[in-house]
């Protein structure tokens, strides 16, 4: 007897669940009566939630919703150093409802390094807008004797193969910068790989390593804290957030190191839709409220429209291919 009642109760609950869910599914979505976008636009992020790319994407896309008059939904597809996500963008349906974040130079390095194991190419993307450009930074502990990149070179020459240089591991833009640094200055240092900035910073502050290459935006809290000394940044010109820090070029090292993050769509999407997207992004970037928030978040904004972005991408791609051909990593 008790069993029959039990399963009847079960049945009731199940039916109620079905009813509720159906009602939820029938609720109309927020954007009706407009040509594009008619439903939420999916933005694929090739990295895990919480990382730099993810947070930048979420912040910017949320601000852009006002201008696109629609909703963005972030879809995280981490894996294979970004390759899985980038592939997903390149092979997405070309109806304009799936776009994604691309990260030069990583997005460029994957096909160069992994060859045909990677199923996308630069031509598979139509760049909509670049959001942020995060320059590299050469950083030393606050009480170090190293006060400039020249000091680093001198120290390395005095004691070859002793100076402990932290970087993000092989295949990163830091690795290329470090290699170039060693080659152009004729020095040899001990290169210590790190999997993430956190442990790298800890090692620096604990004097486990003497100096390191990393991303400027990740150093901003410590920079403000005077917890580290930023010797130089890898941008073309000095950056606003660290006005007293010279660039690599100013310090005698003729190179730039830039990690960019921007939005792209698969090639083949209706140009009309692409124009709507790029215009919306442009207006987002001019929005003063958004710019204030970005400043709070220390996001190094660097807006590039589709044509400029494409130019930069092609230039970077040519550069990296040349480097790889000379000396593959």
């Amino acid at each position, binding site marked *: 007897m008790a069993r029959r009642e039990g399963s009847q109760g079960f049945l009731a609950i199940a039916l109620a669940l079905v009813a509720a869910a159906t009602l939820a599914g029938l609720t109309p979505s927020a954007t009706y009566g407009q040509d594009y976008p008619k439903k939420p636009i999916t933005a694929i992020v090739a990295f*895990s*939630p*919480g*990382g730099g790319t*993810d*947070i930048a994407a*979420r*912040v910017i896309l*949320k601000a852009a919703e006002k201008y696109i008059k629609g909703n963005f939904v972030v*879809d*995280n*597809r*981490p*894996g*294979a*150093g970004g*390759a*899985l996500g980038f592939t997903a963008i390149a092979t997405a349906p070309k109806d304009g409802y799936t776009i994604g974040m691309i990260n030069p130079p990583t997005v460029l390095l994957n096909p160069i*390094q992994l060859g045909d*194991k*990677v199923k996308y190419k630069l031509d598979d993307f139509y760049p909509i807008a670049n959001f942020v450009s995060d320059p590299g930074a050469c950083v030393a502990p606050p009480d170090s004797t190293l006060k400039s990149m020249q000091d680093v070179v001198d120290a390395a020459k005095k004691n070859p*193969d*002793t100076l*402990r240089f932290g970087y993000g*591991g*092989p*295949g990163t833009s830091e690795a290329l910068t470090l290699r170039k640094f060693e080659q152009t200055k004729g020095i040899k240092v*001990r*290169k*210590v*790989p*790190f*999997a*993430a900035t*956190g*442990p790298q*910073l*800890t*090692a620096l*502050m*604990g*004097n*486990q*390593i003497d100096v390191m290459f990393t991303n400027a935006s990740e150093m*901003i*809290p*410590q920079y*403000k*804290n005077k*917890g580290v000394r930023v010797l130089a940044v890898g941008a073309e010109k000095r950056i606003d957030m660290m006005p007293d820090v010279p660039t690599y070029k100013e310090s005698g090292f003729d190179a730039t190191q830039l990690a960019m993050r921007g939005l792209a769509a698969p090639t083949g999407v209706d140009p009309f839709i692409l124009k709507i997207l790029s215009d919306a992004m442009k207006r987002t970037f001019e929005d003063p409220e958004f710019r204030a*928030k970005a400043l*709070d*978040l*220390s996001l190094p904004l660097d807006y590039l429209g589709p044509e400029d972005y494409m130019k930069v991408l092609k230039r970077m791609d040519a550069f990296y291919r040349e480097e790889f051909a000379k000396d593959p*990593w």
Partner: protein
Amino acid sequence: MDALGLLLHGFQSALTLNNLFFCFIGVTVGQFIGVLPGIGPVAGTAVLIPLTFGMNPTSAIIMLAGIFYAAMYGGTITSVLINTPGESASVITCIDGYQMARQGRAGAALGVAAIGSFIGGVVAIVCLTFIGPVIARYALRFGPPEFFAVMMFGLLLIVGLMGKSVVKGLIAVFLGLLLSLIGQDPATGAERFLFNQLNLLDGIDFLVLAMGMFGVSEILLNAEKSMDMAKPPKVKGLIPPRDEWGPAAKAIGRGTALGMALGLVPGSSASIASLLSYSLEKRVAKDPSRFGKGAIEGVAGPETANNAYAGAALIPLFTLGIPSSPTVAILLGAFVMHGLIPGPLLYQKNPDFIWAVVASMFIGNSMLLIMNLPMANWWAKVARVPYKLLAPLVLLICMVGVFSVKRNVWDVGLLIFFGVVGYFMKKLQIPAAALLLSFILGNNIEFTMIQTMALSRHGLWYLFMRPISGTLMALCLVILAFSIISAIKKKRDALAADAEV
């Protein structure tokens, strides 16, 4: 410094209705995230950060911190009830916790875990407030050589935790280590053991392995006896019997100390904390053979340790602005987003904020305890859902959970594969826990070894040239020597005694 006064002021701020509300939401969401497989505290916290934009910084951090430690507790619930670790720190809890559940003592397991977690978390926070800054500076002396030494120590402990057969245990450990090497080698970028699958470039996800070898394989194992499993024994209630209070309390005490010590060291992890605690408990117990069969210290110790770890891990974040683990790194991102720069300056410029957050952690942990003690019984009743319904649901939830990690069906296929492998391992009595733990440690060990060798021209001898790592390595060698000697002795005794069954 009037720390106590500031703390009281902090309580005032934390006890406002607004902040209490956000604390409650954080703790509830955190538990939910912890129970659901797939979404870990990292992803869960990250997804919620944008929602905190409009909130004032104090409330935002209160909520996010609540998610952080509540998620740890949620992972315990699944470990105990369905032998599936929700995240890496809960693996150890599966060993004795699940056995306790099978004996009808799920309530006691969850209860002691709740109490231990509360005590561990609160004590860690107290120390955070008063002696944090001093200790944090010292912790910076730990570099890659020290991390390597700590992990080797952990590996030796895993070996020591194995059941009857040394050979099988070692096989599990080596398999775990090998599996962890699949993927791109972070030190040289070489791709290893990909078998032509780009999906393996990042290696095998811990969650896939854990849910396969523990969750799915358990269900497959039970399926042998047909899906109408005998009704699990009646849940005996929350409070463990009198004679277990003493050992549990001592385990909690030891776990707190251990967890806190490790939490201060950037680079260790909650799983090492719980692993060390379990080993410690097993070694100091009067009757170590109870472990693996439902010893309450095997739950109390590790659970306390990993919450104490979580609390203490916030110290390097607050005082130096250094995140000691990915989850904490998310919190750092949240801090920065709200314009708060963690570090020594934070204590000076925004003392109200710090003390309010600390006070809220007391409150959050209390909320966890209050919510969970009665709920433990509730959760335990989940085990009484008819198995023929529970098993398929758990199977589905495992598959969805794994899918949600990378949104890749391939991972689910891998889950099934490891489910079958785990099933056979259980039948052959090869310890899956050892495999999983050494998997967690595996490529970190290799990476830190390479880092150590990169740091100095002396290569691995560098380990012995530094005081901390030198001591740890010496300890490892001593333990290794002892184990080998005692193993040889046992063999010799066995041969001499001409064992009769």
